[in-house]
């Protein structure tokens, strides 16, 4: 059974259709990349899955149950966690406290601190645990996004353009952190414009355009597909 199964998901903002009858599955243990031009509806899809916005129609099955009507916090506890494209740390709290907020549920005392520390360690932020989150530079903010998401002990991690704006080396460090998370058994769906970073870890690629799924398959096949090329390179499909 798929861990996440999107069925005929529709969302429109007024006259603008952002996801149009979208369906796809994410299997347990997979790491999936989502590609698509700006405005394709990728971030909206994440918002729909995490629950910050409600869908107009369709189902979001997580682990077999439809969560389309479930609240944000409840979905988080079920095991869906996301990071933001633009990091949103709790600026007035320390890095450690930021992570601790997510590490709070279902754990007691020391356990929780251990878990928060592990999340920081995986994200490579342990040395900066006591800094004020508002004072972090971009790479560290991105890491904090990931550490916080991990602290909620997700089964499904949604990463939204986490590699954007990083240098080559920083991106490399982040990739190894993502691989660690994945090998620990977390299923990952990753939206990214930094295609080479995405290709280096993704086992499957999903391509969206204008709220529709236009390709879904092995990365190599998808990248070769003419429709994908036409979107990204402006190639004429008829050529």
């Amino acid at each position, binding site marked *: 059974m798929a861990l996440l199964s999107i069925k005929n998901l529709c969302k429109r903002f007024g006259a603008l259709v952002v996801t149009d009858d979208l369906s796809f599955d994410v299997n347990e243990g997979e790491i999936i990349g989502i590609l698509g031009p700006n405005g394709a509806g990728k971030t909206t899809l994440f918002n729909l899955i995490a629950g910050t916005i409600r869908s107009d129609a369709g189902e979001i099955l997580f682990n077999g149950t439809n969560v389309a009507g479930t*609240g944000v916090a409840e979905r988080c506890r079920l095991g869906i966690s996301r990071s933001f494209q633009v990091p*949103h740390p709790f600026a*007035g709290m320390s890095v450690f*406290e930021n992570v601790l*907020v997510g590490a*709070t549920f279902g754990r007691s005392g020391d356990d929780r601190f251990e878990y928060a520390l592990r999340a920081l360690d995986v994200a490579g932020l342990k040395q900066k645990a006591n800094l004020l989150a508002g004072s972090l530079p971009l790479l560290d903010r991105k890491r904090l996004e990931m550490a916080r998401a991990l*602290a909620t002990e997700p089964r499904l991690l949604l990463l939204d353009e986490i590699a954007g704006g990083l240098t080559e080396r920083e991106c490399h460090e982040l990739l190894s952190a993502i691989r660690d998370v994945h090998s620990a058994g977390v299923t990952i769906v990753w939206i990214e414009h930094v295609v080479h970073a995405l290709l280096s870890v993704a086992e499957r690629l999903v391509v969206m355009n204008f709220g529709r799924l236009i390709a879904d398959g092995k990365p190599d096949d998808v990248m070769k597909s003419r429709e994908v090329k036409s979107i990204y390179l402006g190639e004429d499909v008829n050529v």
Partner: protein
Amino acid sequence: MDWVNGIVQGVLVGGLFALFATGLSLIFGVMRIVNIAHGDMIIACAYLAFTIIQLSGLHPLVSLLIVIPIASLVGYLLQTAILNRTLGKDILPPLLVTFGLSIIVQNGLLEVYSADSRRLAAGPIETGSFPLARGIDIGYLPLLTFLTAVVVVAGLQFVFYRTEIGRSFRAVSDDPETSQLMGLDNRKVYGLAMALCLAVVAIAGVFLATRSNFDPFMGPSRLIFGFEAVIIGGLGNLWGTLVGGVILGVAQAIGAQIDPGWQLLAGHIAFLVILAIRPEGLFPRGAR
């Protein structure tokens, strides 16, 4: 010596004002609600204590053991059943709803308890005092009120910065959208914040009612004192709120020394002066 005595008594009264103010500050800090009914909640708690004392004969301070849990529960229910519905981008609905609550509470109290002014009898500590120096006597009750305010502020500070629920308060206050994504149920967190606020309100109500007479329409003026203490101290800083209460108390005491009719005026003037010179208050917490 009269002046020194006046100032000392003003400091002690400031503790009571700080008790009025901390709950207000807490609620504004966590969910950006300006609770117009705050003063009426204080008076309602005073009446609740009054009823419990009538029924059981407990000492007012002991009655707190019953008043605090009841008030907290009511606070939680009030927040989850009514006030949560008013929260959103628009700041007007919570203002209107708490204003309405204020009117309902006042008239409800009038209906049940009549307009007679009441007082909680606290026995010997009510009038007892000890001499600090010649011409300066410290009353047990004012001293206890002040110390309670210090303990309440220290306690809230501890809760906010050293406990899990405090971390949730700060997280929802900082970014209510993200906090939900981290598994916090904001509505429940707001409910707990209101429960904590009402616990402080209960303490404020009982101390107010042992110190002076109260009637159903005293709430709004307590609200004003609370507001002034919060603004003087600087938003979001509980120790600042305590200092704000003390400044207000001292200003009133000095005013009263000049002329008994000047007591309230002097407090408001001190507030206006500080608002004019430092609109952000004396100790604002960080720049947002």
